[in-house]
């Protein structure tokens, strides 16, 4: 599953787009998308190309949140399709992330 990474707003925002299946096999790729790089002020996780997501993907989002400063993290999750939105809703992730 390719994870695309894009730097926006002169490096202030890091956009991460997991495509296809976002599950345990994406673990390393997703981590490499943000780790070892200069930390961004904002993170944007674009789920437009994400077809499937499991609970380990939720775990990966939590790892990103921890990396980005925990409660101070500024992470937006956008463009989730209905099924994926349901997964995020059941886990009540809107309490941890901005979901649009």
């Amino acid at each position: 599953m390719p994870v695309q990474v894009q730097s926006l707003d002169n490096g202030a925002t890091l956009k991460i787009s997991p495509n296809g299946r976002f599950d345990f096999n994406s673990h390393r790729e997703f981590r490499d998308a943000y780790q070892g790089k200069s930390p961004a002020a904002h993170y944007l996780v674009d789920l437009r190309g994400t077809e499937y997501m499991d609970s380990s993907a939720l775990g990966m989002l939590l790892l990103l949140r921890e990396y980005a400063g925990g409660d101070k993290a500024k992470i937006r999750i956008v463009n989730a399709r209905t099924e994926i939105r349901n997964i995020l809703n059941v886990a009540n992730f809107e309490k941890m992330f901005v979901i649009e």
Partner: protein
Amino acid sequence: MLKNVLVVDDDQTNRLILRNLLEREGLAVTMAENGAQALEACACQRFALILMDVMMPVMDGYEATRRIKHSASVHFTPVIFLTAMQDDEQLARCVDAGGDDFLTKPYNHVILKSKIRAMLRISDLHDTVLHQNQQLNQHQQLLIEEQQIAERIFKNVVNAGGTDIPGIRVLLSPTSVFNGDLVLSARRSTGELHVLVGDFTGHGLSAAVGTVPVSDIFYAMTSEGFSIGDIAAAINRKIKQIMPANIFFAATLLSVDALEKKFVAWNGGMPEVLIIDVNNRIRQRVRSQHLPLGVMEEAMFDRAVDVFAVEYGERIYACSDGLIDAPIATGGRFTKEGYLECFGPHVGADQLFDWIVGSLHEIHGDGPQDDLTLVEIVVNEALASIDNVIAPVQHQRNSTAWQVNFELSAHTLRQVDPVPLLMRVLSEIQGLERHKEILYTILAELITNAVDHGILRLDSALKSTPAGFANYYTERSTRLAQLDGGSLRIELLHAPQPRGGRLTLRISDSGPGFDYKTAPRGSGANAVTSGRGMHLLRTLCESIEYSGNGNCVEAVFVWNV
């Protein structure tokens, strides 16, 4: 270490030329004069390469090669035929016999050396792959052994509570030895049933490791009388503390009080819990209101629960998302809609669980893809009996005399449920363990009365309708959260008696009291419901006396070992 090459030729000159050539290549050489000697040599040691003549006395090269290759171990020993024959068919026979290459005499030394090097390289590669393969096998074996050990530990911990509770049915269908799904159940000492249905992130060992502290906390706190909200908070704290950030535990904690006909749920990240009425229709859907356990900081944790009134014959269904995601034969998945459609009058109440399980096996084909869990709890009289609560450990020592007083402020009452804390104090009385359930009931009734009606001034008439029942508990938590005055005073006095003791509990609240001389507390529209608690107390205690303006109560419990 020098590599060993076997030269098989009946002509001495040929052998000497080859030895000369090989030794200059840095190889050790062993010689054989015919196929039979070659077999003997191969039986004693392993060769990196064999150079084989075809026509020899005793045993020719074809036969020798066939036998060497046939008896060869897992190692690869390349054979190069050196032959004077030019006939294509005979050269093909070399390969058929198991030869890996051939060269016709008179051979060019440069080409022979190149072929030897190439063969040795292939042989090295083969050895490397073989070695890695062995390592992989060892790791695999180790992994399986560790999983088996861990599985045993897991089972011991999870089954520690180990009572079969009538009225609960569980389908737990894991994908592997270790899975993230977990179902725990135990009875509180007052008889309420606690059930936890949960799903750890991912699969395998990492998912299963966390189930050990979870079940420890669940059983210990249930046995000490804590509520599911408190248990959820403790599990959350523990997982947050010990597990990495990406591991969390979606869980729903359920409490069924069959005596009070009260159902309480805390749902964090699990599919909806359903209350099914006696006609098999979905009466209530309890959706996830919380983050999964292990995600939220302790200070931010929300232990708010949903409270519902339930009737005998009603059922409670909980499942993991593995059930909803279960693939079906025609492609696609079971789906939430498919699950919800299972409930309805088309199937008898007693067959409901089997009907769902049956339809799952049908649609599964190759068996479950993900962990899937389904739990059914039937609310009935059997659940109300307190026969099968977790058995307390018994000690035989003498009890002592003591007295202890507590003054609980509004601040404390907002933060902690005093009943389990008092139970801890009382458990210090030796010999009293056997009466733990009864004592818990007495304490819980007295304190709930004092807090609900005395301090929070709730009217139990509210509870007379199912909607009012839920409202009552909502109102209770609202009032409790806003409580900024009032207090509760608790005195415990214990006097040993021959073969037992006499425990006096005095509880007074700061409320206005009530007219205890003419009416049971909280009477009025719903005297039956509210009077029941008092009736229960009178059967359990030697005496119950109200005093003051009704805000003080003294209960005496006499016990024998």
